[in-house]
């Protein structure tokens, strides 16, 4: 069971490494969206600092959301998803492994880039630290909830946008708490309350999402 989880992880990481393009591009998308806003909104520093946390959170959400479409789609398309579901291990583990791999591939790099973009928005160091912490707690939620959405919309044409529609509403609380934490630290009201809500949300999705996604996957393959 342990071995199976590792095999899934290793497989997805290898595939991502083989297609380094995909992987890099999601990070570029993050940088790009975060940089478009100063263009659309104008360059005043204090305004940028105000909207910075929100924009970075939204950009991170969109960047890793877009890659979610392909969480199961590629494997479904070439038939290997059926093979994996028909393997002698429980489907929950498969889903969990794929969610973790998704987070490692698309979530973690965002954490590394975010501070740089934070500087661009004139955020203070303290705000950047909290931003990091909130993204650390928030991005796994997206990968986990996303696995549910990806499983539900598997094989549907236009599944990508449908996925977004299904997942974003569920994800909005994370977005609010995450950006709220950074705002809180900037306004001096503290970030603990927001961060602990975010943490609770993460644990909750870790415990529920894989099961629902596994059920959804079996339904979608029928």
């Amino acid at each position, binding site marked *: 069971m342990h071995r199976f989880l590792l095999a899934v992880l290793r497989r997805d990481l290898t595939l991502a490494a083989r297609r380094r393009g995909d992987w890099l591009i999601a990070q570029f998308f993050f940088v790009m969206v975060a940089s478009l806003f100063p263009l659309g909104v104008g360059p005043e520093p204090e305004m940028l600092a105000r909207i910075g946390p929100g924009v970075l959170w939204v950009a991170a959400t969109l960047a890793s959301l877009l890659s979610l479409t392909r969480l199961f789609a590629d494997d479904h398309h070439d038939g290997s998803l059926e093979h994996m579901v028909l393997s002698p291990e429980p489907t929950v583990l498969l889903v969990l492994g794929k969610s973790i791999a998704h987070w490692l591939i698309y979530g973690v790099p965002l954490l590394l880039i975010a501070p740089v973009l934070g500087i661009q928005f004139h955020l203070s160091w303290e705000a950047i630290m909290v931003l990091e912490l909130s993204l650390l707690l928030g991005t796994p939620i997206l990968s986990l909830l996303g696995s549910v959405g990806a499983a539900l919309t598997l094989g549907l044409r236009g599944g990508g946008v449908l996925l977004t529609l299904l997942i974003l509403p569920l994800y909005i609380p994370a977005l609010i708490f995450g950006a709220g934490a950074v705002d809180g630290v900037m306004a001096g009201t503290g970030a603990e309350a927001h961060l602990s809500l975010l943490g609770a949300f993460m644990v909750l999705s870790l415990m529920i999402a894989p099961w629902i996604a596994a059920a959804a996957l079996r*339904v979608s393959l029928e």
Partner: protein
Amino acid sequence: MNLYTYASPANFYVLAGKLIPWFSWGAGLLAVWGLYISFFLAPTDFQQSEAYRIIFIHVPAAWMSMFIYLVMAFWGAIGLAFNTRLSFMMARALAPTGALFTFIALWTGALWGKPMWGAWWVWDARLTSELILLFLYVGIIALWAAIDDVRRGDRAGSLLTLIGAINVPIIYFSVKWWNTLHQGSSINLMKAPSMAAIMLQGMLVMAIAAWFYTIAVALVRVRRIILERERQTDWAKAILENE
């Protein structure tokens, strides 16, 4: 005759047919009564003047939007657990009406907010979570529309309904958990009602009318769904020929 016989689509089709007129007429009469209270019995509010009359639509619609969602989640869970076809059909029959009431709650809230708060829309917790509820309804309906295979659609939609159900307590308790612009709950079983008895009565009558309406509409819709899915069976063919 026991309840179980009605779990079969064939019997339920007939039963629903009998119930629909009662609920439709009930809804109509209750709505007339409720509107009469709203506009002619309820007095002018000393703070909000006449604008508060929106409450007679807004609150029942907001309640319905949440209740219907919970009922859908309930039917979805039953369907997933026991594989009963009828419960999935019920869930499907309820969704559009739920979305309609959510939309009405948002719309009337916005129309109320403009004179009261000076803005059509603010991003407070209750308003946001109600908007999310609308998105959830639309998402579920869109998912159903995107999946052609009914069985797959039933299950996928129910799974989505289930995880979305977390949102309902958030909407309800948002005014308590967060300090918001929106009014707190004034109906509390423990406390005496904090509003005039006649207003409360009007809201309740309108809420019951909305319930009756929902049931009537859902039954009509579920009958159509049953007929469509059971068209291969002899009883459905017989009904089609006679109707």
